[in-house]
């Protein structure tokens, strides 16, 4: 990213080159704008509407009685906060949220640590197989989860049969799985980040007698927080968003919130319609931690995404 902090400037250089005293902003716009004004307005209006109308309706619907949401009532007759009260007892939403927070939080921290260390080795040292590992990091990101689900399940079950260690159904099993799945991307993010760091500081520290591990701890990590944050947040999201593994590898007590949410969608006993109002309020609660994370780290995340090139 450029050193320029002003968001409007496309690059620091363009700003520096602009003659002083000219109304830079408007001129810059006239020149670099591609779409004519009317078309820009049309595109922006359509897209903002496409996003805000459904999301806005869901916000409103989360305050409507279950039956009204099910009947597609657009203008609410009745506004109630009951959904936000009842949803906690309909399913174990709090337990799900707690499990998701614990699992994803631990995954984020450990995977960012391992990714930083691994990326440091990959970027700063030359060794045989380095390019193969880099290529592997990219390739592993695209391996479908459905391929690994069954063998991981069988391996973890075998750990119980042969080693008497219970992994299936525990948070530990989920953590190890998500942690590993997050590593290729997290490491790739850190590789692209560390490449951008100047070597000089590390070399100076080496000359002062710092070991590589000391350099990593005292020089690389303090300089890499933006990259580490991106790696950690994406690892967190991987854990938070997963349904596939959580649906097979959890017990009711260790269920993540992604699984707990599915219970609302099922028809109630006696063929009654699902509790759509509560479903909407709990879906929004599930999205909340993720939205907060993005709001806090938005600047880092967008830059990190485009550098890493993958979601």
């Amino acid at each position, binding site marked *: 990213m450029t050193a320029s902090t002003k968001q409007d400037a496309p690059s620091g250089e363009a700003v520096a080159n602009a003659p002083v005293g000219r109304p830079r902003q408007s001129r810059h716009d006239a020149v670099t704008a*591609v779409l004519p004004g009317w078309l820009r307005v049309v595109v922006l209006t359509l*897209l903002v509407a496409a996003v805000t109308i459904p999301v806005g309706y869901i916000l409103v619907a989360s305050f409507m009685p279950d039956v009204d949401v099910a009947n597609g009532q657009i203008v609410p007759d009745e506004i109630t906060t009951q959904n936000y009260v009842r949803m906690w007892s309909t399913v174990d939403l709090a337990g799900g949220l707690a499990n998701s927070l614990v699992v994803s939080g631990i995954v984020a921290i450990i995977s960012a640590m391992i990714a930083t260390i691994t990326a440091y080795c990959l970027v700063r040292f030359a060794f045989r197989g380095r390019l193969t590992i880099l290529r592997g990091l990219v390739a592993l990101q695209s391996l479908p989860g459905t391929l690994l689900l069954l063998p991981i399940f069988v391996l973890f079950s075998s750990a119980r049969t042969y080693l008497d260690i219970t992994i299936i159904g525990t948070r530990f099993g989920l953590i190890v799985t998500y942690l590993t799945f997050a590593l290729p991307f997290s490491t790739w993010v850190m590789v692209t980040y560390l490449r951008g760091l100047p070597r000089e500081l590390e070399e100076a520290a080496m000359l002062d007698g710092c070991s590589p591990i000391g350099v990593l701890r005292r020089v690389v990590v303090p300089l890499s927080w933006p990259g580490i944050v991106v790696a950690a947040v994406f690892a967190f999201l991987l854990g938070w968003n997963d349904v596939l593994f959580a649906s097979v590898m959890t017990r009711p007590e260790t269920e993540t919130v*992604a699984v707990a949410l599915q219970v609302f969608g099922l028809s109630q006993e006696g063929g009654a319609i699902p509790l759509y109002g509560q479903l909407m309020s709990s879906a929004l609660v599930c999205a909340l931690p993720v939205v907060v994370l993005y709001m806090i780290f938005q600047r880092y995340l967008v830059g990190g995404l485009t550098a890493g090139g993958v979601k």
Partner: protein
Amino acid sequence: MPAGAVRQARKAGTTGRPLWLMAPGGLLIALVILVPAVLALWMSLLQLDQYSLRTWLSAPFVGLGNYVEAFVGSRLLHSVWVSVAFGVLTTLLTLPIGVAAALAAHNAFRGRALVRSVFLIPYVLPSFVTATIWRTLLQPSGAVNESLSWFGIDGGLWLIGDRSFWTLVLVDTWAAWPFIYLLALAGLQVIDREAHEAAALDGASWSQKLRYVVLPYLRGPLALAVIIATLSHINNFTLPYVLFGSPAPRPVEVLPMLTYTTSFQTVRFGLGSAMAILSVVLIAIPLFIYLRAVRLDTGNRAGER
């Protein structure tokens, strides 16, 4: 060994290459990704069901039997077709939307920060939340059909029957266009101001400018975005699973859903593994192009020491 030599050796060891630092990551990836991947290959050659799974080491070996059955006696080919059609169509739909959004949001205007945040919403929402929301909106008597009825249109069924395929494409398009938008926006940042100025001096119309100035710059980033997006659509399990439930209606029986249903609902684990292996073969094609395209050593002055 003299003390000096020891110190020398230790110094060489520590100032050298502490590659053992990569052991934790390497070990995890080996244990949780590579070994299971090989295991999946092995299991695809076995006759595995809920009884033989417990003693999978001694399960009957059936060779390529599962693969033959996948092609001849299952809906695999149908699923491959659905997956490819879904992945390609969704990418083709998100591409112009994302590029248009980036072009429109690139230049400063009042409220741009807000608009940019709004554009991120579909991207930020977890897939299972997006799917849950749309599943509710698209119920037979849900909000979408209710709104359509205001215009005298009978919305009909979105979540079952032939139309479910288009529902999947549209919902995924809604969720995925911001990815293209973000990468296109990043691509727009690097266009030289001189190129814009030259185009303006030549009196180029906006469509000419788009075609001859902007799009050539975006070709690289967009090609990458297209491959990554297609791969992630084809691998997407959460969206169809939460949107339609399992087993999925046939028009949306994408490969990950078929594999999941075969393994965990009809408990044909061997057949499911064979399907999973075949889906890797399918994604290997775009993945290969991606690996050729991505520059592994960009701007790395350090590595080649």
